[in-house]
């Protein structure tokens, strides 16, 4: 039941463009798709047109940056999920399950609360999140390895243990901080939220997503070999140690940057790769681009649901992904071909 990539990629790109437009039209003030495109075009080309300043503000300042960030973060988390699953050879891995998102949160909160890394300006929080992501990813990996082998069950347990401890640490830092404002922003952000996105938030995630996905897609052959096994990959000419080190850095960077702008949005990296593999098989050269696009479309619509389902109350998007992702995770656990050899 495989769909040819030549059909799937343009189709998904069109779906992404359509989703962005539709998601911008939806809100307390409904707008037409034509208005959205006209305003976007006018802004880009510097012309003016027949719409109110309020409409222009809603489209250009409020909704469009948020929807675009949803697409970037969704794509980024899906891509990280795919590659992380190859690194640890386990379909239950994603940055949230493995505690890497929680590590990134600790780093980000330390920067916000302690004012560290101030010399990096607006990139300080992302840098802190990246550092936190690297530390937690390596930590979880080392705990999960025993006797030179990576144990699937140990990995999930190590991820959860680290995730809980790091979340606790984040709460501790936030609640004991002198900075009262931090508690409010951090709370919303720990649940994963895309609210209050500005254009200036988009540059870094966009650059990191494009470069990260590019690097991973070019390494697709090696990721395929890695998925079969370390020893096999080595005999196929892959320098496994070096590849894994690079993947740790690239994946931590992607996770750190995505978490810095959106908080810990769970399970996107788990659900999307699974669905994509059902559509196009396991070859990473196909899976990665499809996952990037589908992840973007997915998170755009989840964010629309977060904005609209309990309007005027706006839910953090992470609440919805958690509600969808938890049962999905359990379903995967139940249907996975766990063999006693793996779990013993």
């Amino acid at each position: 039941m495989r769909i040819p990539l030549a059909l799937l990629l343009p189709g998904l790109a069109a779906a992404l463009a359509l989703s962005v437009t539709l998601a911008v039209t939806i809100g307390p003030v409904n707008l037409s798709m034509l208005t959205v495109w006209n305003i976007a075009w006018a802004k880009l080309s510097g012309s003016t047109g027949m719409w109110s300043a309020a409409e222009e503000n809603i489209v250009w300042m409020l909704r469009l940056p948020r929807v675009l960030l949803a697409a970037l973060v969704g794509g980024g988390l899906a891509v990280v999920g795919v590659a992380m699953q190859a690194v640890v050879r386990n379909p239950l891995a994603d940055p949230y399950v493995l505690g890497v998102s929680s590590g990134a949160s600790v780093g980000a909160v330390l920067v916000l609360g302690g004012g560290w890394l101030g010399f990096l300006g607006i990139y300080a929080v992302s840098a802190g999140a990246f550092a936190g992501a690297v530390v937690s990813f390596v930590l979880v990996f080392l705990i999960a390895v025993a006797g030179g082998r990576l144990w699937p069950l140990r990995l999930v347990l190590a991820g959860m243990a680290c995730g809980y401890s790091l979340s606790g640490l984040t709460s501790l830092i936030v609640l004991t901080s002198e900075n009262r404002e931090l508690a409010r922003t951090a709370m919303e952000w720990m649940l994963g939220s895309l609210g209050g996105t500005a254009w200036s938030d988009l540059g870094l995630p966009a650059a990191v997503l494009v470069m990260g996905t590019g690097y991973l897609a070019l390494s697709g052959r090696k990721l395929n070999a890695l998925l079969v096994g370390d020893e096999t990959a080595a005999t196929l000419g892959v320098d496994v140690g070096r590849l894994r080190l690079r993947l740790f850095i690239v994946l931590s960077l992607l996770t750190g940057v995505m978490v810095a702008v959106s908080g810990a949005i769970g399970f996107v990296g788990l659900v999307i790769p699974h669905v994509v593999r059902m559509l196009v098989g396991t070859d990473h050269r196909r899976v990665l681009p499809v996952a990037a696009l589908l992840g973007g479309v997915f998170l755009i619509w989840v964010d629309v649901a977060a904005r609209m389902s309990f309007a005027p109350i706006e839910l953090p998007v992470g609440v919805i992904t958690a509600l969808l992702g938890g049962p999905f995770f359990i379903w995967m656990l139940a249907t996975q071909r766990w063999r006693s050899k793996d779990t013993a």
Partner: protein
Amino acid sequence: MSQLIVDGVSVEIEGRRLVDQVLLDVAPGQFVGLVGPNGSGKSSLLRAIYRVLKPSAGRIVHLGDEVWKVSARQAARRMAVVAQERMGEFDFTVDEIVMMGRTPHKRLLDTDTAADHELVERCLGQVAMRHCAGRLFQSLSGGEKQRVLVARALAQQPEFLVLDEPTNHLDIRHQLELLELIGRLGTTTLAALHDLNLAARYCDRLAMLCEGRLVAAGTPAEVLTAERISAVYGVEATVGEANGLLRIDFRLKQQ
């Protein structure tokens, strides 16, 4: 001129010496069988040769280069391996698995060419698995999987094949077919084998390991003597000849 020289190689894991100063050489075009009981160090020696277990002493030279000093990619273009690694939860189709054999020949931006696909098909044909090209690897039987892995090794177009117990999980016919195929390929091959009769029949030379040491090397008739089999395997053996082939029978030693 030897293609592969194993020069005084020892392998140690956690202080235990699994391979002890083994000397071995393989001439171009030869099919050399590595025999010995379980735990005699066959797999460890092979893993040192295919660069997974770093030897604690000695040198391994393949085509004039020390195998531990060339890049992983260069090593994989010369040497292909069929080992006993179990695949995890993910599944690939059979042709995707065989296409992985092209990995060491590819640079960053290279795509799979028509020639690659042709080669994959040819390699699958050589192991009589072409009809399964589109199937999922995990859905195959043990013997079919083994043949697909051999096809992947062939797709690497190596000058040297390393096989770790390639006939495991195979029924008699497929055992014979596989060893026949390897003999026919003419590629220099080093294979760990369990079945002494098969080893005697298909290998040009044999090397026998016991507790990590090389105890004999030479033609099958030179290596497989009744006294040596009795000493190394701890069983009574009779070595005879039938239809020009060595024929070995075993029974437990009387207490």
